[in-house]
């Protein structure tokens, strides 16, 4: 058995399998720890019925944050790789730098920036964009904090390094002689990008999508601090089921549903593309 498979088995498959009996159980008492296995498949149906919309919302937010992150990350990675020159290590360091501070502290800092009296809304108002942004639903009654937009922005900024780094790595692997050859054959810069850089950087794109979509779908901090009660994500629900409602079997069922969906997304992403191609940093 390869080390990779052992790793997957020990740290991914086994913990999840251990949840399966719990997810089919019932608590013996309201405040006790004991549960009894009853093969209660209804736990799954109940959590899907009660929390299905939040599950959909979570993947929606994660997908939007990843898409927005890609729009930001791709040009950034391109600039670092092809325009960075001797500043390249420094630029990569700057991309990673925010990740060195606490995830929690960053979310809390965003609450100041996105608040009703904060600089972002002041800028939006100064540009006369409050009305239009409200009309398209990016602001809620002129507010930004405690909206879906704030949650997605928070997720995006947190995910950026996970998108930029695989892209830089993938672009690093592009042989500069290919670009020279394209130029020698009179390819325009745009054609050079479309026919050389883009196809060769796609493995980085795939890796980045995986590395950002997975943590984003299970994020608990951004919806808690930056969202409102209409913007909660599925991890908040699981936390509430486990720690507040003391419904461990239902929390386990919902966790397994979430993990199954994430696994499905990963498999779809890997389909048609060998995992060995992914330039994971």
């Amino acid at each position: 058995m390869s080390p990779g498979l052992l790793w997957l088995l020990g740290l991914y498959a086994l913990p999840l399998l251990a949840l399966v009996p719990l997810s089919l159980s019932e608590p013996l008492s309201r405040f006790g720890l004991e549960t009894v296995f009853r093969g209660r498949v209804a736990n799954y149906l109940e959590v899907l019925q009660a929390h299905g919309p939040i599950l959909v919302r979570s993947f929606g937010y994660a997908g939007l944050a990843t898409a927005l992150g890609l729009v930001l990350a791709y040009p950034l990675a391109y600039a670092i790789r092809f325009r960075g020159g001797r500043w390249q290590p420094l630029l990569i360091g700057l991309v990673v730098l925010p990740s060195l501070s606490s995830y929690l502290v960053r979310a809390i800092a965003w609450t100041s920036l996105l608040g009703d009296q904060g600089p972002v809304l002041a800028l939006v108002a100064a540009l006369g964009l409050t009305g239009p942004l409200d009309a398209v639903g990016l602001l809620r009654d002129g507010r930004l904090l405690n909206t879906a937009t704030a949650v997605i922005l928070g997720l995006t900024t947190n995910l950026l390094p996970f998108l930029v780094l695989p892209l830089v790595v993938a672009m690093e692997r592009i042989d500069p002689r290919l670009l020279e050859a394209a130029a020698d054959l009179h390819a325009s810069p745009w054609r050079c990008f479309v026919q050389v850089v883009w196809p060769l950087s796609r493995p980085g794109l795939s890796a980045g999508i995986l590395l950002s979509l997975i943590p984003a779908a299970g994020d608990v901090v951004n919806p808690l601090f930056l969202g409102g009660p209409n913007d909660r994500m599925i991890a908040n629900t699981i936390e509430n089921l486990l720690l507040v409602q003391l419904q461990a079997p239902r929390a386990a069922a919902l966790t397994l549903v979430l993990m199954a969906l994430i696994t499905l997304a990963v498999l779809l992403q890997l389909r048609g593309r060998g995992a060995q191609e992914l330039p994971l940093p």
Partner: protein
Amino acid sequence: MAAPSSPGRPGGGAASGRGRRAFLRRLAWGASGAVLAPSLLQACGQGPKGHAGDGGGELVISTFPLYIDPGQPGAPGSVARFRTDTGISLRYVEDINDVRQFFARIQPQLAAGRPLAQDLVVLTGWMAERLIRLGWLEPLPLAQVPNARNLIPSLRQPSWDPQQRYSLPWQSGIAGIAYNIKATGRELRGIDDLFDPALKGRVSALLEMRDTMALLMLADGKDITRPTWAAAQPSFDRLEQARRDGQIRRFTGNDYQNDLLSGNLAACMGWSGDVAQLALEQPDLRFLVPESGGILWADVMVMPRGARHRREVAEWLNWVYDPIEAARIAAAVQYISPVEGVQQVLAKDPATAALARNPLMFPDAAERQRLHSFGPLSDAEEARWEERFARITEG
């Protein structure tokens, strides 16, 4: 009663500067939360010296953040003074964010009959009642606490501990409405004002289910001393609709303080001591006991089963029930002190005399008539209530 995905009843932060203070408050809330930092004390049932349940000669207290007078340069806070006065090594840990989440953290050890690292824990009255019922608390060593006689009459023989064997109140307070008069543009009078469309998106309710539901039920004219599922439905419906419509911006613990200070909220459900504190920084803030009535709550000190340091616990209880020490704490946290004589101590000092006249700290008989306590819920009822409430607060 304290905050659900929230911090405890806060007290006086020493930080200066509104933004910094708000940031530090929120950080204290986040850091103490089970979100990211489950208590290390609970992590493996070990005390500071690594012996299961043995505090290693050290008195360990778990409580809410910012719930005691902080130390200042040249003026040590209560924790430091207690250590000096008694020579007892005290570890005062502000690691309780939400009593329900704290319960989930201590549940595995107590259910398995293993002691916690803590000798004393500050919890809400209703949570103390649950722990008493489960047999997870030790009777307090009240024979060694002569100052316990200073407990104010209104908190004696409480519903959660009728024999007063397992708990002594830490602080008491009122749940009501906090608002910024400049943001609302008018004085508020009752719960209905929180549903005013003019305040849409600038209102919050509490994650503490009992406080939020009790305030709403009182406004609906319901009896909260004997709460029933049927009587609560209109209030649940009203809350759910307000959440859906975006009238309610957030459900909060103590973190509504930051939003009130920073202008994100115009009005909210809140706790009296918080607002008294905040009003020192922001004079436009008001606290209101709604026309329909406010909620009287109490946080209590309890000793988990298997606590090792009974003598030290008795020393602490006796020390904080001394009116002079209690007055120092009360002056910082500005809740209703459970200790008789605090009002007189505060009145004697010109620096604190105004506090002695504060009706939120020392409500008179007429004001007390307007305060109500939420009655008990059976286990099954509580589960039902929690589930519906979570559906509303968690979207």
